[in-house]
C-alpha cells in the first residue's frame, strides 16, 4: 500500500481493532501502518482468558480463547498482550483481572506491564495460589492508579511484608494478612481503604484511632476507612465506648473518583480539634475524616 502517511492514517480510522491487528500480522511495514490508528477512544482490559479492547459505544473487541478447548494460556496470553501493546500503542490498561487460577499467568502479564511502565486503572487480584516474594515485587512495581482489589483466601505467611507504597485511590483488601502496619502505610496514599475478612482486633482499632487523635499519623490522605473483622463482635470498648457505637451525624465525602458516607455516626475529635465520625455496628467499623 504505497500511499502517503496521511492517507494511510485515514484508512486505518475506518478499520476496527480486529482488522488493525490482522493488518499488523502482514509484515513489519504493515505493522507500522496499523499503528497509525488513533486508539484514544478504545480502552484495554485484561481478563483471565481474554484481552478486550472496549470502544465508546459499548462495543468490545475481545481477543478471546476458546473456553471449551483453551490453549495453555500461560504460554499464549503474554505474547498476545505484547503484540497488542505494540500494535495499538497502549501504555494504559483500564482493568486487569487476574482470575483465580494461574499465578504464573498473572506474574507474566504483570512483568510485561511493569517493564513497559503501563498504568493500570483497576487491578482485581483473586488468585488462590500465590508466590509471596514475586507478588510483593509485582505489587511494589505495578502502577495502579484508581482501584486495587485483593480478594483471595490464600493464607499469607508472617514473612509476607508487603506494604502498599504505590497507592491507588481506593484500596479494597479481603484477606486476613492486611493488618495495622499496612493500614498505617495505606492511609498516607489512598483516599479510601476498605478491609474485609480481616484479622483486625479491637486493640488495633484503639491503637489506630489513638494515633489519629494524637495526630501522630503524618500526611494522611485517606478520608474514609471501613474494616470488617470477627474480633469486633462483642462488647470490648473502642475509645472507651461500648459497641455498638452510633450517633446522629450523617456525613459524606467525595474525593478523586471515590466517595463515602456514614449515617448515624458518632463525632470524635483529635487533640487539635480535627473531626471525624465513627460507627461500629456488629463486625463492621467505619470512619470518615473531616
Amino acid at each position, binding site marked *: *500500500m504505497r*500511499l*502517503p502517511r*496521511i*492517507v494511510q492514517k*485515514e*484508512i*486505518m*480510522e*475506518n*478499520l476496527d481493532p480486529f*482488522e488493525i491487528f*490482522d*493488518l499488523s*500480522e*502482514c*509484515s*513489519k*511495514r*504493515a505493522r507500522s501502518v496499523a499503528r497509525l490508528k488513533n486508539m484514544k477512544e478504545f480502552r484495554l482490559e485484561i481478563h483471565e482468558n481474554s484481552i478486550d479492547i472496549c470502544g465508546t459505544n459499548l462495543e468490545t473487541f475481545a481477543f478471546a480463547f476458546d473456553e471449551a478447548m483453551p490453549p495453555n494460556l500461560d504460554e499464549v496470553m503474554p505474547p498476545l498482550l505484547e503484540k497488542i501493546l505494540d500494535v495499538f500503542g497502549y501504555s494504559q490498561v483500564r482493568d486487569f483481572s487476574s482470575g483465580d487460577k494461574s499465578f504464573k499467568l498473572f506474574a507474566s502479564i504483570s512483568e510485561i506491564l511493569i517493564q513497559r511502565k503501563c498504568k493500570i486503572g483497576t487491578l482485581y487480584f483473586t488468585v488462590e495460589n500465590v508466590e509471596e516474594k514475586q507478588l510483593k515485587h509485582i505489587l511494589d512495581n505495578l502502577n495502579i492508579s484508581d482501584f486495587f482489589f485483593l480478594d483471595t483466601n490464600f493464607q499469607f505467611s508472617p514473612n509476607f511484608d508487603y506494604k502498599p507504597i504505590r497507592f491507588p485511590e481506593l484500596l479494597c483488601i479481603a484477606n486476613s494478612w492486611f493488618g495495622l502496619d499496612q493500614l498505617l502505610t495505606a492511609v498516607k496514599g489512598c483516599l479510601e481503604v476498605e478491609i474485609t475478612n480481616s484479622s483486625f482486633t479491637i486493640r488495633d482499632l484503639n491503637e489506630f484511632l489513638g494515633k489519629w487523635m494524637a495526630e501522630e499519623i503524618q500526611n494522611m490522605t485517606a478520608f474514609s476507612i471501613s474494616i470488617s473483622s470477627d474480633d469486633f463482635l462483642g462488647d470490648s470498648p473502642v475509645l472507651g465506648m461500648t459497641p455498638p457505637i452510633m450517633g446522629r451525624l450523617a456525613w459524606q465525602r467525595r474525593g478523586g473518583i471515590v466517595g463515602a458516607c456514614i449515617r448515624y455516626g458518632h463525632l470524635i475529635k483529635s487533640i487539635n480539634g480535627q473531626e471525624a465520625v465513627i460507627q461500629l455496628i456488629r463486625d463492621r467499623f467505619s470512619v470518615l475524616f473531616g
Partner: protein
Amino acid sequence: MSSTEQGTSSAAPAEPTTAPESAAAPEVPESFYYVHGKDKVVHKVSAGALQHSALIHGMISNLGYTEEQAKANPFPFENIDGDILQMVVDWCNQHKGKPTPPEDTNLPKQKEKLFDLVLAVNYLEIKELLTYCCKQVAMMVKGKSPEEIREIWMIPTDAEDEAAEKEAKKRAGKEAAGETAAAAGDAK
C-alpha cells in the same frame, strides 16, 4: 502543449458538462478554469466545482484570470493519469454547490484505479472525496484474514521488503559511485 478542450467526458468533447447558462443564471457570470493531466487532455471546470479542491482553490483564488487567460494557462497535473483526472472532474461537477452525501457508491471497484484516485485526490486536497476513497479502500479488507489483506492491498512480505531495500541501497551506491567518477572526470 497540444491541448483539446473537453468537457467532463472524453466521449463528448464539444462542451463541458458544467451548469448551462440560462435566463435564471446568476448576475455574476461563473468563471471557468482549465486543467489537464498526464494525457494533456484539457478539462474545463467551473470555479464552483473546483472549490472542492483546496489545492486548486488556493491557486486560483488570487489569480483573477479572464476567460482567455484561464484558457491559455491550464493547470498541468502531470502526475495524474487522464482517466483519473476525468473521474475527479466528474465528481467535482456532480457535487458542485451541494452537500456531500454520507456515502459515494460511484468509486472505482478496481483496486489499482482506486489507489490512483486516492493519490490524485490527496494531491488535489479534495477532502470529502478522499474520505470516501479511504472508506472504500478500508472496505476492501473487511472481514479478511492477514493473508487475504496482504493479497488485496498488495503488501510485500518482510523478505520482499528487505530484498527491495537491499536493491535500492545497491542502486544508490552505484549512482553515488557514478557521480563521484563523473566529478573526478570533470575535475581533470
